[in-house]
């Protein structure tokens, strides 16, 4: 994936670019919104990672301009402003996701990859498949190797999200945000418990576990 990093903090920018390059992505960096806009106009990016507060043109201004020009490339906002209204402003300006600084690196990578993936699977799907796991979004039936798996509604949503992001790490925060639609920080491992319940339904009795724990990051569904 080609990623444009627009961030005025030189060091943060370098670390981010290095980390993303290590995970196999191409990175281009820009030191502020105006340069960011120039780079973006060259095209060919899968995701923009944009800091909100920058000299010259700030992140919100840059993304608003891009959206006006019809550029629909997914945007992940980075911000030291973590309050609810800041998040709302960012998303209203055309951001697709919002990550508050400081963040854990796996969280950034997971979100960037999720954004890029969302773009790829833009077409409407009715059946999701990951290895021998199948989910029918119409009949809401889940089978693994032909065996019916009975899921609670929330477990179904959780699995759907994991399947849509198969092969990628998804963090606990992402799951709480995207599956439960809450933006807060649970102190205990509530998400882990839900995952372990789901795991006991889809992996129990099979040789290979599809739902894997990624240390320091979260979970990943592997075919």
């Amino acid at each position: 994936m080609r990623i444009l990093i627009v961030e005025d903090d030189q060091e943060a920018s370098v670390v981010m670019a290095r980390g993303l390059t290590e995970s196999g992505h191409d990175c281009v960096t820009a030191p502020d919104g105006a340069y960011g806009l120039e780079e973006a106009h060259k095209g060919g990016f899968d995701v923009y990672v944009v800091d909100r507060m920058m000299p010259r043109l700030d992140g919100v201004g840059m993304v608003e301009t891009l959206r006006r020009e019809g550029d629909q490339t997914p945007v992940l906002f980075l911000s030291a402003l973590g309050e609810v209204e800041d998040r709302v402003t960012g998303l209203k300006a055309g951001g697709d996701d919002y990550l508050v600084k400081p963040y854990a690196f796996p969280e950034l990578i997971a979100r960037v990859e999720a954004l890029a993936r969302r773009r790829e699977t833009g077409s409407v799907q009715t059946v999701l498949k990951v290895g021998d796991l199948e989910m029918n979004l119409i009949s809401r039936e889940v089978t693994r190797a032909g065996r019916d798996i009975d899921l609670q509604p929330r477990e179904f949503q959780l699995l759907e999200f994991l399947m849509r992001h198969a092969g990628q790490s998804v963090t606990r925060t992402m799951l709480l945000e995207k599956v439960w639609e809450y933006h807060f920080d649970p102190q205990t491992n509530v998400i882990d418990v839900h995952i372990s319940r789901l795991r006991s339904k889809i992996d129990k009795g099979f040789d290979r576990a599809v739902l894997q724990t990624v240390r320091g990051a979260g979970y990943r569904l592997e075919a």
Partner: protein
Amino acid sequence: MRLPSVFRRTPFRLTLLFLALFAAAASALLLYIYFASRAEAATRAEADIRRELSALTAIYRERGVDALNAELIDRTSKGGPYLFLLMDAQGRPQTGNINESPIVEHAESERWEKFRLSGADARGRVARRAAMGVQLRLQGGELLFVGEDIGESEAYLNRLSLFLWGAAGIVFLLGLGGGLFVSRQVEGALGRLNAVVDSVQAGDLKQRVPVRNTGDELDELGGNMNAMLDRIEQSMASIRHAGDAIAHDLRSPLTRMRARLEVALIDADAGRVDGREALARALDEADDLLKTFNTVLSIARLQAASDIPDPAVFDAADLAADMAELYEPAAEDKLLDFAAQIERGLEVRGNRAFLAQALANLIDNAIKYTPAGGAVMLRARRRSSGEVEYSVTDTGPGVPDADRERIVERFVRLDNSRSEAGHGLGLSLVQAVAEIHGGRLDLAEGPGAVDGSGPGLRVGLVLPPA
């Protein structure tokens, strides 16, 4: 030249301005009175003279010059303010109480004139008194002059204007004195306000304006300033407290992390380990520190905010149901009996994310501190007062009465909770969320000891209705 300070002050300047306006208005009024009175006196004198003149000409017309002569002699002997003089056709005086006519020109028609009359006043001094008169030629060619001494009314006018100017002077002096007094009063009050502002600027937040409860605006301003200073002092204290607490709470994990990294470095240098585990643990600790830091920041921002951030009206019951669904597996995992009792239709105005966090913190605490085999109950209901109450009740060890106030404070953790993970910020955040919503946090004893467990704890988060 610099004026003495009082003259440069706003209240005094306003007083002067007011006085100037007042003086202008008073002068205009006085001039009007003066000229109007003068005109009135002249009109009256003219009417008097005309009356006399028509009576005399009537006598002349009907009974001839001798009768007029006799009449004039009669009138002058009676005295009065009138002046008469009958002259022959050449202007030589014949009869009258003046020696010569003040009107020298012997016109054929009526001729009016104002003039001065020399005479002696009551004390024998020579005085020139104002007079006016008319002179005309009678049918027989004789000249008749009739005048009136208007010295009395002119003197009255002069006296009147003198009084009026005197009064104006007194008013001006009183106004000036009053202005000085008022400006001193106002300046004193403003000076007290200024003194407080100065010392606050110099860093002394303890200063307050003396308030006399007189209910005037300056007193009110002082009261408002005091209230503002109280609020600022309070937030400063709370910021300072938070700062101290953060410093205190972050120091030990930072020290620990540093030590661990140092040891890892030594070990790595010696080739004993590759240090990866130490790095991973340091990373975990850094994450933990960031979490603490963010929570403290959220609390501080909520406490500083003036209104609910990004408010919306929503059903508190849905939120409770979501939280119950989210936490139930975690509770059951810990072998706790988890139950939720949620009434429908509980509209509240609030910030959904913060309320979710608050409710999550309460459920989290209950699960954390209740030993296996116990129970946790989440309720959402409308109280008879109309308020919406979330409550989380557990059968854990509870919190002694004496500590209930304390556990809401930042970083306060009771001794028997130290073994559990946590930062002692959960309830502080709930409290801050409750306050910004205009609600409150109620801590009470739980349902009582069950099967050897503690008395339990019931925490209520009460919100005003939408």
